[in-house]
Structure formats: structure tokens, C-alpha cells
């Protein structure tokens, strides 16, 4: 099923929302946001790319899984409360089932040496993917000389000192956000 026509405002019903977000949830590995964009903007044309960027703004501003937040926003926009429930459900239902199936397999066969060594290899790769992600996020930072020290402080507090995350985040946000606020005022 492909959207035809050039207007942006195709109004999806609940079923379309569920199915659209299901396809997004099932197509991405290690983050599905790019797939969400492709589905919403290019394939179904439920939003223009400017609309997508604005709405994504709040989704990324607030904590929590960004793409779930995005599903809530898109669902609400087209079908109110019901849409805001159905869209994230569609996003999660398929992957949820797959992950539980894998968990069942793990519970049954996870202790076998062959599974253990396979998972050890995947964990090493997964660890590398995380370092790469941190690197990519780090190089995308603005004003590195000012803000990278806060990254270092966060790593020291969380990975080395093992301080609890909520207090570290609140303190970090006050300091780093405070500096940002001050810098914004000087421009």
C-alpha cells in the first residue's frame, strides 16, 4: 500500500496508525528513528519534513525513548487519545513479541556453551557500537571546549564513582544548562 497524491494531510485511521508504526518498529535495529521519519514523511506523507522536525523537537527535549514519544504525538494528532495509545502500541507490539521469543530461547538454551560464546561475541560488538554512538554524539556537540568537560564529569560520576543517575543528571543539568543559559544571553 503506497500513498499517492502530493498533499501531506492523509488522515490515517487507528488501523493505519497501528500498522504504520508496526512496520517502523520491526524494520529498525539499534534505533528506529530514521525509519519513523521515512514512513511518516516519505512513504505515507502523514507529515511534511518541517512538521516532523518541529514535533521531534519536543520528543527529543523530553527524556524517555524518543521514538515512543513521537508515536504518541503522531497518534494524538490524527486520532486523539485512542491514536496516542494505538500508535506506540503498534510500534512496540511486534518487537515485544520477538524479544520475548528470544528470551524464551535464552532461558532454555542460554546456558549452553555455544550460546554463551555467541552472546559473548555479540556483547563485544554491541559494546563497540555504543562507543561509536558516544563518539558520534560527542562530535555533534556544539561548543566542544565549553561542553565536553561536562561529558567527562558525567563519565567520572557515573562510570567511575558510580553515583546515582538522578542526582547526577539534576546537578549536571543545572551546571551545564546554566552555562548554556549564560552563554545564550551574551550573544
Amino acid at each position, binding site marked *: 500500500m503506497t500513498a499517492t497524491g502530493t498533499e501531506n494531510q492523509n488522515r490515517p485511521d487507528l488501523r493505519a496508525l497501528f500498522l504504520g508504526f508496526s512496520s517502523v518498529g520491526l524494520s529498525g535495529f539499534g534505533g528506529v528513528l530514521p525509519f519513523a521519519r521515512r514512513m511518516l514523511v516519505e512513504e505515507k506523507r502523514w507529515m511534511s519534513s518541517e512538521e516532523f522536525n518541529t514535533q521531534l523537537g519536543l520528543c527529543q527535549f523530553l*527524556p524517555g525513548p524518543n521514538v515512543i514519544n513521537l508515536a504518541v504525538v503522531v497518534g494524538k494528532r490524527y486520532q486523539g487519545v485512542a491514536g496516542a495509545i494505538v500508535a506506540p502500541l503498534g510500534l512496540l507490539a511486534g518487537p515485544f513479541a*520477538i524479544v520475548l521469543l528470544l528470551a524464551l530461547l535464552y532461558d532454555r538454551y542460554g546456558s549452553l556453551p555455544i550460546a554463551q560464546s555467541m552472546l559473548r561475541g555479540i556483547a563485544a560488538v554491541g559494546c563497540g557500537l555504543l562507543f561509536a554512538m558516544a563518539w558520534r554524539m560527542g562530535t555533534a556537540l556544539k561548543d566542544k571546549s565549553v561542553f565536553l568537560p561536562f561529558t567527562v564529569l558525567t563519565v567520572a560520576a557515573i562510570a567511575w564513582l558510580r553515583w546515582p543517575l538522578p542526582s547526577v543528571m539534576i546537578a*549536571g543539568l543545572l551546571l551545564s544548562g546554566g552555562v548554556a543559559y549564560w552563554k545564550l544571553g551574551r550573544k
Partner: protein
Amino acid sequence: MSLAGELFREFALLSFVAFGGATALLPEMHRVVVENHHWLDDTTFTHLYAIAQAAPGPNVLVVTLIGWEVAGLLGALAATLAMCLPMSVLIYLLIDRWESFSGKRWQKAISLGVAPLAVGLVFSGATLIAKSAGLGWAAWLLVGATVVANLRTKLHPLWFIAVGAALGLLGLV
């Protein structure tokens, strides 16, 4: 309180500081689940992260796996819901007002200020996985190769997972 209830309480609390998504929460989930409550051991925690990497879907599903291992189906549902629900409700209530405060000085300051912290959290998550997986020198080589290849090429992450699984199976890492 039941295990699932406790999971819900702990993870709902964490969802409020999940800047950078569920990935950024790995160190804190490890603390809650492995260190504080001893619900899982280091090896299982690492394995669950590996399984989540190999499965399709949003990153948040590592939480589902943890919930499952701690308290079965109810635990999986509780943990997933706890991670998604609070912010979903908040965003539902706030989205219509977003236009009016987006671009304000305090809003920009928070966005700018939170970014370096999120980088630190993801980096900490990587060191944590490395530590709890107890990587040997060959595995560290694989980690390094993955970082370089992932940054330099556009290869789909699944290829990396497959290579990792194969090297593991051959007993090389």
C-alpha cells in the same frame, strides 16, 4: 510489593532522567537490577543487552528483557510500561504548547546543556558493558574494530552483530 510492582516503581523513576533514551540508562539499570537488588548477575545482564542488540525494534526493549528475566511476563510488561508511560503522558499534555515555548532561551539552554550529559551516559554504558562482559584482549580488538568500522562505513549494524556472533561461535573472542 510484588517484584513486578517494584520494577515498575524503579524504572518509572528512571524514565524521568532518560535523556538519550534507554541506552543512556544502562549504567543505572545495572545498578538497580544487579547491584542493589541482585535480581540478575553481571553475565545475564550483558547477555540481555546482547540479545536486545540482535533484535529489531526501539532500543527501549532491553528493558523488556530485563523485566522478563526478573519477573516473567508481568515483569516484562511492567518494566516496558514504566519506561514509556510517564513521558508519553507528559508529551501528550505538552505537545500543543510546544510551539509556544520552543525557541525560548531556557528551552535552548536545556537542550544544549543536556547533550553533553547524554554523551557521557552512553559512553558510561559502553564501559559498563565492557566491564561486566569481562572482555579479553581479543574481544577488545573486536570492540575497537567495530568502533572504527561503524564510524567509517555505512554497513548495517546487523552485519556487525553477525560477525560478533560468528567470532564468538569460533571461540575467538
